[in-house]
């Protein structure tokens, strides 16, 4: 029997095993099965805890039973998690950054960095090119000390906090105006509009790569970008992991292009030199218990 024959039989057997379910009524509010992912993921987190000790700092706390809070907001004791792979532009060196960040601005955060030349199954294979391990975290991400700007200055689009992202306007026109005004204010006097838009595109990418961006804000930011003057739109643009979506870019005078990519749901995928995935973890330094869209 060939692999092709086996494939036909195996795929049909798996499909036939899907239990019959009636089509739900359309056009009416429905119950989501969002509880399934956190419950399955919590089980996964418990299973992997022992196997992943070599990658993650042991923690004294017991594995939590995940209760899914709405809209990807961490429950008590949980933290935001992100996995960011970046081609740092130095001989194919890829940096993998895992970041654990609490919802509260002043809370402690931590990070784990791995560097390597190869990506396997969406993770960097560490080796040969630099540091692997937990790096110092701090308080008031991305600050380290309570006296840092991140703890003391007001949040904005260029320096957002989780709370700011949760309460910011979802109107693309308002966001666009605020971003442009902030870009012009932060950049040198006399900066032209194009340079300001370039800075805005870069900062939106950074914001989306960070934690705590609600899905509807991600979609609104995509609309802000789509309305930027002269923005180039590329269908099927791939991020560092080859995940494809719609790319928006500006040429950069020194670095080729500044680009951001969104999937069909308006969620951020990264850029040609970066991939980003977000999730929720049961504590600092722990594997994610569920991933967010």
């Amino acid at each position, binding site marked *: 029997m060939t692999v092709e024959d*086996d494939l036909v039989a*195996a795929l049909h057997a798996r499909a036939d095993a899907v239990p019959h379910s009636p089509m739900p009524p*359309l056009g009416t509010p429905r119950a989501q099965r969002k509880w399934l992912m956190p419950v399955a993921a919590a089980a996964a987190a418990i299973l992997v805890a022992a196997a992943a000790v070599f990658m993650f700092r042991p923690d004294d706390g017991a594995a939590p039973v995940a209760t899914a809070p709405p809209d990807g907001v961490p429950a008590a004791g949980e933290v935001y998690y992100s996995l960011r792979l970046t081609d740092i532009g130095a001989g194919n060196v890829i940096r993998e950054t895992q970041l654990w960040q609490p919802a509260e601005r002043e809370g402690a955060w931590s990070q784990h960095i791995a560097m390597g030349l190869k990506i396997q199954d969406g993770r960097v294979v560490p080796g040969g090119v630099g540091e692997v391990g937990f790096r110092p975290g701090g308080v008031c991400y991305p600050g380290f000390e309570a006296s840092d700007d991140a703890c003391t200055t007001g949040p904005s689009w260029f320096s957002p906090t989780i709370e700011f992202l949760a309460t910011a306007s979802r109107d693309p026109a308002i966001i666009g105006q605020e971003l442009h005004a902030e870009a012009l204010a932060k950049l040198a006097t006399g900066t032209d509009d194009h340079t300001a838009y370039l800075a805005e595109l870069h900062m939106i990418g950074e914001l989306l790569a960070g934690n705590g961006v609600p899905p509807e804000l991600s979609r609104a930011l995509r609309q802000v970008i789509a309305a930027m003057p002269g923005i180039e739109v590329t269908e099927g643009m791939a991020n560092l992991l*080859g995940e494809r979506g719609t790319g928006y870019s500006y040429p950069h005078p020194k670095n080729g292009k500044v680009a951001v990519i969104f999937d069909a749901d308006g969620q951020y995928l990264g850029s040609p030199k970066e991939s980003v995935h977000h999730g929720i973890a049961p504590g600092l330094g722990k594997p*994610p218990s*569920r*991933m967010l869209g």
Partner: protein
Amino acid sequence: MATEVTQRIEVAALQGVLEQQWMPLVRLAALLVDDSDTAADVVQDCYEAVWRLQPDVGDAEHFVAYLRKAVVNRSRSRLRRVRTVRRFLAQARPPADAPPADRELLAAERHRELLGHVDRLPTRQREVIVLRYYCGLSELDTAAAIGISLGTVKSSAHRAITALRRQMKDFSDDR
């Protein structure tokens, strides 16, 4: 009045096609996301979007191809969200026990092993394999369903089959 009647007929036609395609699409999504509950959610999401648009279903074949493409796209998005958790899970998965030397059980074990390798294929290769070998689509229809070129379908299928063949050979050699 005539317009109202026409609208009712169109809504009924849409409802009919959606009902008819519900389970085939749930099964397709289940092969792409591995989980029948998530698969039903994926298809329901597509249906809600289609229902709001109330499209003309005069060309049923074209409409079903459109639905299939929507399911493939949404399955891909859903799969992306769970991929990281699965990577951690895969690291912890214990090796399967050796099955009894029974022909049917061995076939089931071979299928389980093969599907495990299909699940770990890159997303595009997995989509090509499911559409070609489960849905029985031509290379051209597969290209349209995923939104890629014919050449990419051919190369993705070739790479996937080559990889699966190699992995299944390793599986046979180990037994």
